[in-house]
């Protein structure tokens, strides 16, 4: 005992010394000396790059912490780059990009200003920007701030705040710092200051020797690349396609110019489209010529190719950003093609996705596709061919036929995949190297008919690199599908420009488009109220798109402000009219003219829109907001879809517009009340419930329900008796899962019965737990068992105890209990993992009788090997009912047996029918 105490004290001392005594410090540099801040090129003037030389591996740096401030005295923590202490930094130069909208203030921000104490009391370094309004408020002017509010917070929980600005009184919605997440962007032309702290493995801070400053500047966009043009001669269509720029945030317009040899500079503009911010646009243009002329919406001729032959023309692509800065592509000429050179585009269909909560539309097109994707040899004369297939709601595939030919087109085998399991075997008479290649023709039986005219072809060629046949491209009528992609686009009612939502490969046939329910409202934040401790945001919110006025109707969230929207619009019109009068150039006049028309339309809509009038007739604030929410959240989810197909080099084919009654069709997904994919599961559950009801009724009527004997359960009493005779405790492990696992619940049910028997025999029962939620439940079960047995005095709460939630720490604890307490009977009932064998082998070594029960298939062999009795799978769930011997319990047990019988019947029936290529039953079940 004396030595044990000494060893324990020694262990603790060594542990503390290891932690507290610093290792020998080496003279290695830990201070960054070359920090610099540069403007990020080709951006919108809101990005800076912070660069410094990485410290050597010997410095034992674990991270670099980056700080930013609007003055050099106060720098706030903005980000961290973790470093692997063993390998050091990946590159010699470290970079941190402070760009785009990113974290400014959120729920994790500290409440008060907190200094980075480890950087020194006199240092300018502080932790994250605090929620303290006196600090964060004045900082708002140095950044562009976006506030993201949960919609309900904005609708119902803001404070109406009035502020006087000059002669005007403006009403804002005041929000608390815990209601809003704020994102920031740098402002072009403002100066920002940065520094970096290196943190070593002892978490010691090593600030850089200086604070570097930088000013973000708005630059011209990156030059357009991968710009291609084709001219479809027989259809008089000019197609253009270009590569997607890395950063499209700043691009306002895409313009195409045509220039004949006689013209100067880049010629005349023939096309213009805007970016559907904040989303990417589809990067193509398709211009239909009218008698060789490019004509705009108003009927004006933009360019006449009759005068300047397309052959001799050069085309330029120009990106223009919001500041008017431009970048121009290299000139290209249009390749002349005919419509025969273009693929045929299938029709796009849109439906509401079935069995969902109403946040997806399903887009689908074309006939089904099947293709081989892998070839694996399993022996010299046998290969396994893996295939995949894509189809959509229009085509229900019944059978896929693979006709396999050798390189000389001699038929090797016809394979009929009546049940598509994505794999089939093929016997070959030569090795793959000698075969050289296989030719595959794929056809289908879909919707109950064989389509003999629709054949997909594919070649499999031997590849010495991978020593097997490699699947080649898939083609239909000589058109290689992989060459083309489908660009799916969509637009809302209030936007004329389609945004690109997905580029689907040529072999795809279906795609889901998420139409999310609105959860947040995004607002610009530039003002605050120090007294009330509130951030101030605009009170207006979009209500609905007015089709007639072609304008979005907005209204204030406050009842008292509802009429001011019209007054404000009138003031805006007056101000634009004045600007228009002062405008001197045509460009300015056109610019303000457009705005004036837009505002006049908005005013007209505000005065006449019936939905707005309905909303404004509600005087109760909450009811009015509910009405607004019900209108706007639906209106924003209507989309019109469009599809085009291209090869990335201006071989462009557009699908027809989605129209209804001559107008664009806008669709909205609807939520479903029942998931029909789960209908078989519901029917099976109801049938099972019916069986339970029947057998419970039989049992209550006194009918004898035979339940087969289960040795493991029968032996439970003997095991408890043995422990009682030996005067040793019983150990019960309820498994490693939490209370949400049914296996744990089944285990605890058995615990109740074992604990009762143990209490009757006055034998101690130990229950080590891994899950802390299981502890009080297990304690309650054991306590009740003791009370029921009439032995409340023998109940000790501490016999049901927590060991650890770490898997192997738990094993160590349980093994220790087995050895120290010399348990005579060990029960393992529940979910177990790799620790099962370690526990049961230890129990075996201590000579305890062991009974295990688990539904973990991988652990069953270990339990069978090392335990005296094992409840396999379902027996664990049956044990509680088996022990109870009550009619209700036995009824469910019997129902379970009959359900198993019916499942087996289905399995046999399905197997037999499938053997005869009848897949009717299988098809009734969902694929997943």
């Amino acid at each position: 005992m004396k030595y044990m105490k000494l060893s324990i004290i020694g262990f603790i001392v060594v542990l503390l010394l290891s932690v507290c005594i610093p290792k020998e410090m080496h003279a290695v540099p830990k201070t960054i000396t070359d920090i610099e801040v540069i403007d990020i090129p080709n951006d919108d003037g809101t990005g800076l790059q912070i660069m410094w030389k990485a410290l050597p591996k010997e410095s034992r740096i674990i991270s670099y912490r980056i700080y930013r401030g609007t003055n050099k005295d106060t720098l706030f923590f903005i980000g961290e780059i973790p470093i692997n202490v063993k390998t050091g930094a990946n590159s010699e130069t470290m970079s941190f990009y402070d760009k785009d909208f990113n974290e400014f203030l959120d729920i994790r921000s500290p409440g008060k200003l907190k200094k980075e104490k480890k950087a020194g009391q006199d240092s300018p370094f502080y932790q994250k920007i605090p929620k303290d309004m006196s600090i964060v408020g004045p900082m708002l002017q140095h950044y562009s701030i976006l506030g993201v509010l949960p919609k309900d917070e904005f609708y119902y929980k803001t404070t109406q705040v009035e502020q006087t600005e000059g002669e005007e009184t403006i009403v804002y919605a005041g929000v608390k710092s815990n209601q809003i997440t704020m994102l920031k962007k740098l402002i072009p032309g403002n100066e920002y200051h940065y520094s970096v702290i290196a943190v070593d493995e002892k978490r010691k801070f090593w600030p850089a020797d200086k604070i570097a400053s930088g000013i973000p500047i708005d630059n011209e966009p990156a030059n357009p690349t991968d710009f291609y043009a084709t001219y479809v001669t027989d259809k008089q269509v000019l197609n253009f396609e270009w590569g997607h720029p890395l950063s499209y945030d700043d691009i306002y317009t895409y313009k195409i110019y045509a220039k004949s040899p006689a013209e100067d500079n880049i010629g005349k503009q023939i096309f213009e489209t805007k970016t559907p911010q904040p989303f990417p646009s589809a990067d193509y243009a398709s211009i239909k010529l009218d008698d060789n002329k490019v004509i705009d919406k108003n009927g004006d001729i933009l360019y006449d190719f009759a005068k300047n032959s397309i052959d001799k023309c050069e085309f330029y692509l120009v990106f223009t950003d919001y500041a008017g800065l431009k970048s121009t592509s290299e000139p290209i000429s249009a390749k002349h093609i005919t419509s025969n050179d273009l693929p045929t585009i299938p029709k796009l269909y849109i439906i509401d996705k079935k069995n969902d909560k109403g946040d997806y539309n399903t887009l689908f097109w074309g006939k089904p596709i099947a293709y081989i994707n892998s070839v694996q040899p399993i022996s010299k004369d046998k290969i396994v061919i893996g295939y995949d297939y894509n189809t959509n709601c229009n085509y229900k595939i019944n059978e896929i036929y693979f006709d396999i030919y050798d390189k000389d087109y001699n038929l090797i085998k016809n394979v009929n995949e009546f049940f598509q399991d994505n794999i089939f075997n093929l016997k070959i008479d030569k090795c793959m190297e000698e075969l050289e290649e296989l030719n595959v023709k794929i056809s289908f039986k879909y919707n109950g008919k064989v389509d003999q005219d629709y054949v997909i072809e594919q070649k499999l060629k031997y590849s010495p690199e991978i020593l097997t046949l490699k699947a080649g491209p898939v083609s239909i009528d000589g058109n290689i599908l992989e060459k083309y992609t489908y660009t799916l686009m969509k637009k809302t009612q209030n936007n004329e420009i389609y945004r690109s939502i997905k580029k689907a490969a040529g072999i795809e046939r279906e795609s889901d488009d998420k139409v999310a329910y609105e959860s947040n409202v995004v607002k610009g934040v530039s003002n605050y109220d120090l007294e009330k401790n509130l951030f101030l945001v605009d009170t207006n919110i979009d209500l609905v798109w007015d089709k007639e006025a072609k304008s979005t109707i907005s209204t204030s969230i406050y009842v008292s402000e509802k009429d001011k929207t019209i007054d404000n619009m009138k003031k805006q019109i007056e101000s634009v009219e004045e600007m228009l009068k002062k405008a001197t150039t045509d460009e300015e006049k056109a610019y303000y003219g457009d705005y004036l028309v837009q505002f006049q339309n908005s005013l007209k809509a505000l005065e006449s829109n019936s939905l707005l009038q309905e909303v404004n007739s509600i005087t109760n604030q909450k009811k009015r907001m509910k009405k607004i929410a019900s209108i706007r959240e639906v209106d924003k989810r209507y989309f019109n879809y469009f599809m085009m197909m291209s090869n990335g080099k201006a071989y462009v084919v557009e699908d027809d517009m989605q129209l209804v009654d001559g107008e664009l069709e806008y669709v909205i997904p609807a939520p479903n009340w029942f998931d029909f994919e789960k209908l078989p599961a519901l029917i099976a559950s109801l049938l099972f419930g019916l069986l339970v009801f029947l057998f419970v009724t039989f049992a209550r009527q006194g009918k004898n329900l035979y339940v087969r004997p289960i040795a493991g359960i029968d032996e439970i009493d003997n095991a408890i008796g043995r422990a009682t005779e030996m005067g040793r405790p019983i150990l019960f492990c309820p498994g490693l899962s939490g209370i949400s696992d049914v296996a744990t619940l089944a285990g605890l049910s058995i615990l109740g019965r074992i604990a009762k028997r143990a209490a009757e025999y006055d034998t101690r029962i130990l229950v080590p737990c891994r899950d802390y939620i299981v502890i009080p439940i297990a304690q309650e079960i054991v306590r009740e068992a003791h009370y029921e047995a009439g032995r409340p005095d023998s109940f000790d709460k501490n016999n049901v105890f927590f060991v650890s939630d770490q898997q192997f720490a738990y094993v160590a604890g349980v093994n220790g209990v087995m050895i120290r307490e010399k348990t005579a009977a060990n029960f393992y009932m529940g979910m177990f993992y790799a620790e099962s064998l370690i526990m049961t082998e230890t129990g075996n070594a201590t000579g305890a009788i062991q009974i295990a029960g688990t539904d973990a298939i991988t652990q069953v062999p270990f339990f069978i090997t090392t335990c005296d009795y094992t409840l396999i799978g379902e027996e664990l769930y049956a044990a509680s009912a088996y022990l109870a011997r009550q009619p209700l319990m036995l009824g469910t047990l019997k129902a379970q047996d009959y359900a198993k019988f019916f499942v087996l019947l289905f399995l046999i029936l399905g197997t037999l029918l499938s053997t005869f290529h009848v897949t009717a039953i299988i098809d009734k079940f969902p694929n997943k």
Partner: protein
Amino acid sequence: MKRSIPLAIVITLGFLFVGYVFIPHKISTDFYEWYMEWIKAMSPFGVVLGIMSIVMTHSARIQHKVPNWQYSIVTLIAMFFTAYAGFAWGTQEGTPFMWLFKNVQMPMGATMFALLAFYIASASYKAFRARSAEATVLLLAAIIVMLGQVPVGVSMFGEGINDITHWILNVPNLASKRGIALGVGLGMVATSLRILLGIERTYLGGGE
């Protein structure tokens, strides 16, 4: 009352979540997400139960000086020191807490896991003793599968052993695994149904 209120909560919520499985509507998914948020918020409080249990169990052991009570001191010191290290210096890389995790807990866990290799060898010895006809079949199957998994087996017996290995794993082995899985699935449904209908109540404490 002590049992009927928890039982009512179990039955009501149980059926609501059964409904969630079949109803994909926004109302159903919103309710589920709301519930999961609460679960996330509640679960940390469960840790308190664990800590209380450890403190009570081990302090009682120390108080009563039961055999090997010194281990309880180590357990409590380790627990409180680790918690203090986390609170005082944080849990990031380079802190004493992380040092303890990397240099004490991880090696100890790995040591326990490493023991498994020896226990598997011992269990295999027990399982593969040809004491009966069934055990002999087991032994033969194990030998074939083991030889089929290693190159030396193929070089000794040719590619045929590969086919037999695949057959054993994919046909009798998979069939029995699926059979167990089928029973487990039904057993889970039956147990869940017993709990939902209030037939099985032992998990609430006490007997029937």
